[in-house]
């Protein structure tokens, strides 16, 4: 399964991508919201992990653009935020995220969410 990880923090990007690669996922990465929007088209990911606090274009706006474009709106997006603050989940879902998770990442929980989309998209 090919996943686009949009994350500006180098260490978070490195940690999460390495752990997901070990679990058998193919990871492509973008470092800001603008690059994330471009790569949602050019890299044809099957799912997007979107940090919401991003430079250039933030995760909420990038999500709105991806979900607003006919060629990318079908791609499931899991929004990630560092603050487990009340209202964050609703804000992410309002922007068009299909799911939401909080950092620090609990890998097994995140994989459970990723896999729920695989079964949906494969019809299983």
């Amino acid at each position, binding site marked *: 399964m090919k996943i686009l990880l949009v994350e500006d*923090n180098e*260490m*978070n990007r490195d*940690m*999460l991508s*390495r*752990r997901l690669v*070990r679990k058998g996922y193919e990871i492509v990465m973008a470092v800001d919201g603008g690059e994330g929007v471009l790569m949602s088209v050019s890299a044809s990911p099957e799912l997007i992990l979107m940090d919401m606090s991003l430079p250039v274009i933030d995760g909420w706006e990038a999500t709105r653009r991806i979900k607003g474009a006919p060629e990318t709106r079908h791609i499931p997006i899991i929004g990630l935020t*560092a*603050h487990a603050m009340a209202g964050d989940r609703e804000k992410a879902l309002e922007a068009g995220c299909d799911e939401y998770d909080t*950092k*620090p*990442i609990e*890998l097994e929980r995140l994989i459970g969410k990723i896999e729920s989309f695989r079964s949906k998209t494969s019809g299983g």
Partner: protein
Amino acid sequence: MDLTSAARIGQIHREMAELCLALKPPVDELSDQLGRLSRKALEIGVSDAAADLDRMCAASDRLQALTAELIGAPPPAAPEGRAWLAGHEHLRHDLRTPLNAVRGYGELLMEDWQEGGASRLMPELRQVIATANQLLSMIDDH
């Protein structure tokens, strides 16, 4: 700036200083634990983990510097008070970020070191992760 804001700034400033004072012993302990782990890794020749251990040590150094800065910082003067109040929301996040790096890389190494000679480093690594978790709980609960 009105009196309510000034009182609020004073209160938050005190709370942050108290939190950092409470964090200092385990923060220092984390730094010592990482030092011991890195030295032992070097001794038994686990060289492929060096970059990850360096990142963990760098994160621990950042945390030590930040807590020391917050303990010693004087209350913000009135003209800067409003900006400080807006920025303090990020302080807990700034404290958590290096700890999440220590924990995340620690868990990566845990997966790497399940087998082979590096498994001898597991007790020290577990201590590091436990201290990082303890510090994260303290930041969340305070």
